[in-house]
């Protein structure tokens, strides 16, 4: 049977004569599209006598084998030539090293290194390092999406630094396969979505950004919680069930400006991975997903950067190799104060700022770009210092701050985080990463005499080892420990001499030991195993309290005064496993099982998720949430891997989900803990995705059908109810078109998103009644109704005129201008994120025939914007 790959070997090569040299044979094979790998050990001038002038590659190689001492191995379009004696060798050798981008020397993560002979392989770790063993001569193919393949052959143990060349965009998909074309079918990964920098660049640009959070909300099973609100829903799991990591630093609020922008500056992002299921054991503490965002390493050879001026924000980034190949600094920043909109507001506004009543200064036509005092900025940095070949220090930092006037008055909030990492290679097969990480999220509200504070801070130590004992097995193990402090909100009354604290501060220690093993059993079966043992300690000082179940009032309290006092302890083993059965090169079936323990929760009072929602640890009264997830997936590629199809079904069972009991109006009570009720949850669904990953036209359509229910005795009269993250149908699609062969349009990239999903559940009143002359709504149960369905279409146009690039004479570099135009929500649908019930009838409102009316709040309409960029 002919496979498409074999077909290539059958295609005919023409020679001018029947007597050729080895050199000519190699040349012709390369011209025919084969990638060849060979050592220097043989004579390329030796003559080969061909039986005819036109013969296929198999026939040619067979002639070479017969007439010389050279043997060969062919796999797809890859050919390895080696001395015949070598083929007998059973000598095991190891090839190790690092893989970098050839232009900027940034380390590349997730690069596939495949032993061409047996198709076993490894991927590079987060520092671009790898180690692979095999029989000598070892020949590996290095492939990475967006980069050209590289073949390396060695007969001895070797440590190398490979520089991969980025594919230029003019190459069409037929010429280069950027990764194993059926990677999605063969990998052991299930429930995992990975996008590297080259793929991120193809994501539609909205608001001048390839926004990471909006991007992942286009993936199957992931939805926005609400327009203009931070956070995302993964397979029916709450916002707090997503671990959001920026260079391993946890972030607690991932949006700016009513959710329009994410905290991830696209100029600073290198790679993102979302784990919806099949979460490796090195991650823990959240139930539903991990969003692992790796920030850009600075360039080690050239100064590069970008400046952008936009209507809403402006930004800059700079990569500076302060000491070439030794010390590199990356910095990036964004802010609204540098955008055109801010300056237009300044010019058209009436004098004076915040008017003290929540009203704003208005432009001539009554609107402004920004609500009063609304502004934000953020900064990223990454400093890498290569001490020597075996040691490297990395510092990553993030600072972000938002300002706005909200119900709580003049407010601001933001994340700050830092991460110092030491990477050390002990031997070629053992790598070590040692990390110190700190992250804080603070909120502040100034309501005149009253000031509100809340925050969470985490400080952690991590030690991790990666070990590559053999080709078919790799290990990772580590230990981590995180100290957490929670300020649940305090109110300072500046008119009085004493500050009122509401819920007392809390402290906790979350620790874990973990190990992961990836193993290939046979050519068809491979698996990933993991075990994480996590422990949570609630630490002093503080009180443990026993609450009355009905009144929620404290019955008794025990005081703990010392920092070292342990007030509550939980230990949970968390087994993880996933396996792939490869039916053939086009079909595979994958399965995974996951257990995750979550010790923190974000408590949200309303359907309107806000920046001041409170992070709450596990206490003696609140048990951790345990999630068991099983998933089964089928992966199939069509049309010579041009179309990738996948479907996954999942079932999640959760123990210890929590929601507020009826009747809590605000967080400012000292018995908040008592209002938290716990129960069980279950989510299940099916995801279907079709993707065209390569070519001028790329795109993906995915659909998810799901349900997510909670059952908590104290809520909804004990009946199961749809939790606020339950989305029945969701359809996500995004398309990108770069007409590289159309002369007039080759400088343009067009992109289109369309998103549809069922509205989230809300609680609405069914009746009303009067007390005196005041009408009250009456609610029968919780979350019985839904917000209107959400849908939106965005269009993005990027114009990068290559002919306008300005060459700098001295440095042989160029300035490349570009213009991004984005049309967000192109048909201007006002999607609703929360519903207010307002009383209009009986108050002289002639338009209202009923006492109560429903009013939806919508954050954004049609938002066109543009941004000028200058890259150097």
């Amino acid at each position: 049977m002919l496979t498409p790959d074999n077909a290539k070997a059958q295609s005919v090569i023409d020679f001018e004569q029947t007597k050729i040299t080895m050199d000519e044979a190699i040349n012709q094979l390369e011209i025919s599209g084969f990638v060849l790998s060979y050592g220097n050990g043989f004579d390329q001038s030796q003559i080969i006598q061909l039986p005819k002038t036109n013969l296929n590659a198999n026939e040619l190689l067979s002639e070479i084998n017969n007439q010389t001492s050279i043997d060969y191995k062919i796999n797809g379009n890859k050919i390895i030539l080696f001395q015949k004696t070598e083929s007998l060798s059973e000598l095991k050798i190891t090839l190790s090293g690092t893989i970098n981008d050839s232009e900027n020397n940034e380390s590349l993560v997730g690069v596939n290194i495949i032993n061409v002979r047996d198709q076993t392989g490894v991927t590079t770790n987060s520092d671009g390092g790898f180690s692979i063993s095999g029989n000598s001569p070892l020949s590996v193919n290095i492939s990475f999406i967006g980069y050209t393949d590289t073949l390396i052959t060695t007969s001895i143990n070797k440590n190398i630094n490979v520089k991969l060349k980025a594919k230029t965009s003019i190459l069409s998909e037929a010429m280069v396969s950027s990764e194993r074309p059926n990677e999605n079918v063969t990998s052991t990964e299930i429930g995992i979505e990975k996008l590297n920098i080259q793929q991120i660049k193809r994501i539609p640009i909205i608001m001048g950004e390839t926004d990471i959070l909006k991007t992942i909300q286009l993936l199957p099973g992931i939805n926005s919680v609400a327009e203009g609100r931070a956070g995302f829903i993964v397979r029916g799991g709450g916002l707090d069930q997503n671990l959001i990591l920026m260079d391993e630093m946890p972030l607690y609020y991932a949006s700016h400006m009513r959710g329009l922008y994410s905290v991830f500056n696209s100029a600073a992002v290198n790679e993102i991975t979302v784990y919806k299921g099949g979460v490796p054991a090195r991650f823990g503490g959240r139930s539903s997903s991990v969003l692992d965002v790796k920030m850009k390493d600075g360039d080690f050879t050239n100064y590069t950067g970008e400046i952008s001026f936009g209507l809403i924000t402006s930004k800059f980034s700079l990569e500076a190799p302060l000491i070439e190949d030794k010390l590199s600094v990356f910095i990036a920043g964004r802010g609204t104060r540098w955008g055109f909109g801010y300056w237009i507001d300044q010019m058209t506004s009436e004098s004076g700022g915040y008017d003290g009543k929540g009203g704003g200064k208005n432009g001539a036509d009554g609107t402004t770009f920004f609500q009063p005092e609304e502004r934000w900025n953020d900064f990223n940095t990454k400093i890498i210092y290569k001490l020597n070949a075996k040691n490297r220090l990395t510092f990553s930092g993030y600072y972000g701050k938002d300002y706005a006037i909200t119900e709580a008055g003049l407010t601001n909030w933001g994340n700050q985080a830092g991460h110092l990492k030491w990477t050390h290679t002990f031997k070629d097969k053992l790598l070590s990463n040692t990390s110190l990480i700190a992250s804080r999220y603070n909120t502040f509200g100034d309501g005149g005499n009253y000031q509100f504070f809340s925050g969470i801070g985490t400080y952690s130590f991590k030690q991790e080892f990666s070990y590559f004992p053999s080709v078919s097995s790799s290990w990772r193990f580590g230990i981590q420990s995180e100290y957490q402090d929670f300020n649940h909100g305090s109110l300072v009354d500046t008119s009085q001499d004493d500050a009122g604290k509401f819920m007392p501060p809390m402290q906790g220690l979350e620790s874990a030991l973990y190990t992961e093993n990836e193993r290939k059993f046979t050519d068809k079966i491979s698996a990933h195993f993991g075990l994480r043992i996590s422990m949570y300690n609630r630490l002093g000082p503080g009180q443990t309290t026993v609450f009355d179940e009905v009144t929620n009032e404290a019955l008794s309290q025990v005081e703990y005064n010392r920092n070292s006092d342990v007030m509550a302890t939980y230990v949970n083993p968390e087994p993880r496993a996933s396996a792939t059965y490869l039916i053939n090169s086009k079909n595979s079936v994958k399965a995974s099982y996951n257990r995750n323990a979550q010790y923190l929760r974000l408590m949200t009072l309303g359907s309107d998720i806000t920046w001041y929602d409170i992070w709450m640890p596990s206490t003696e009264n609140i048990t951790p949430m345990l999630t068991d997830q099983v998933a089964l997936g089928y992966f199939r590629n069509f049309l010579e891997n041009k179309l990738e199809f996948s479907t996954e079904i999942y079932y999640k069972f959760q123990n210890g989900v929590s929601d507020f009991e009826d009747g809590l109006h605000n967080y400012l009570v000292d018995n908040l803990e008592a209002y938290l009720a716990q129960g069980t949850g279950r989510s299940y669904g099916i995801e279907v995705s079709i993707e065209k990953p390569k070519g001028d036209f790329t795109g993906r359509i995915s659909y998810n059908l799901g349900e997510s229910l909670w059952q908590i005795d104290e809520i909804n009269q004990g009946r199961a109810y749809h939790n606020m993250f339950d989305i029945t149908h969701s359809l996500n699609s995004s398309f990108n078109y770069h007409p590289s062969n159309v002369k007039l349009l080759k400088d343009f990239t067009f992109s289109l998103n369309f998103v549809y999903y069922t509205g989230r559940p809300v609680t609405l009143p069914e009746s009303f009644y009067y007390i005196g002359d005041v009408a009250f709504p009456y609610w029968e149960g919780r979350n019985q109704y839904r917000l209107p369905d959400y849908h939106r279409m965005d269009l993005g146009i990027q114009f990068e005129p290559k002919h306008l690039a300005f060459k700098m004479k001295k440095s042989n570099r160029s300035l490349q201008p570009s213009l991004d135009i984005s049309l967000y929500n192109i048909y201007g649908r006002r999607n609703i994120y929360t519903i207010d019930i307002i009383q209009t009838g009986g108050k002289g409102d002639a338009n209202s025939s009923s006492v109560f009316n429903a009013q939806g709040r919508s954050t954004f309409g049609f938002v066109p914007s543009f941004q000028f960029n200058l890259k150097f």
Partner: protein
Amino acid sequence: MRKEEALLVLFQAFNSILNSNYMNKLFILIALAITINSCRKGLQEELVPLDLNVNDIGTITVIDAKIEKDSATWVQISYSQDINALFSPNPVYEANAIVEINDGNISEQLVYFQNGTYKGSNILGQVGSTYTINITISGVNYSASSIMNAPATMRDITSNYYINNDGKGGTVNAYSENWVVNDPSADRNRYLFEWYTNGVHNTRIDWAIDDNRVVNANEGLSLFNPQRDIYENEHTYFRVSEIDKTTYDYFNMYEKIVRGIASAGDQTPYNPVSSFGIGTIGNFRAVAFTSYPVHTPPSLNILPEQDQNQINFASNNLYVSYNLYWSNSPNVSVNSNLIGNISYSTVEATNTFIHDGLSSGTYYYKIEAEDSNGIKSKLSQTASAIVN
């Protein structure tokens, strides 16, 4: 035709700005203006009217009942309506219930009055007593009890004059309040405040507070968010009473509804816990109020004339007397010259008082209002005029 010109104008903005003719420039400017304007508008929050398509859940019995210190029992019974029901000024009332109050010793059957209300007459509320109310409607019984706690007392009541915005671009004379209730820290206490302006109970400003919501070192609970300011020339009483948790929940919800804070988007909206049990809405409270006056004076407007000043001020029929003080120095006080206690009836006719027989110089005035119980307001702000 140049390449740039072949493309849509929006796409070519960058190129064209660098190199284009006047028409293009104009077009770009217009496109830019439209973009900027649309972007501005798109970023604004918008409210969208929605239909409420909800289930029919039948009607719920609503009972509001109270007994106050030294007063008889009062009960009102009505029924809930569908949320989309057409507006009618009156709820659906129950006129045929049998309503009884018991103080632990004796019972009294209440008499139907009107609008679903029933009134007692013999049993009057006393501090320390436990009261039980029993209601029978069509053979179904509803019952609730409440203990009357001692009245709460205020430790500090101050109000300070300031000029507030009237919301229409103008200003209004107002008083900010700082009211602190005595709050024994040993107990978890809750209080209900009621506000009477010019003799009318502002039910929409009733306000319940839980001392847990504000922790204060010196055992005073500050009432920090009154719903409205006191304006000038207002005869104001407010009343404070200690209440139990059920009543607190009831009024807390009441307050939130009235203030429009309760959003249907809330995950935890709730029907106030009923003292009459599941399937009903209602509250029965035995409450002992303490009343506190906070009267404010009118402001003065002086018109200087030959040898006299014409003094204008607004009147209020709950004040029986206005006391006008004057001085030649700006420090006018109750120890300054008293022009006279001008009666309400005098003021009502003209709202004017003539201060005559004056020699030339600067005259400063302040006024205070006094009600029929002899309770005086604070002094007004100083007004002055120069007599030539």
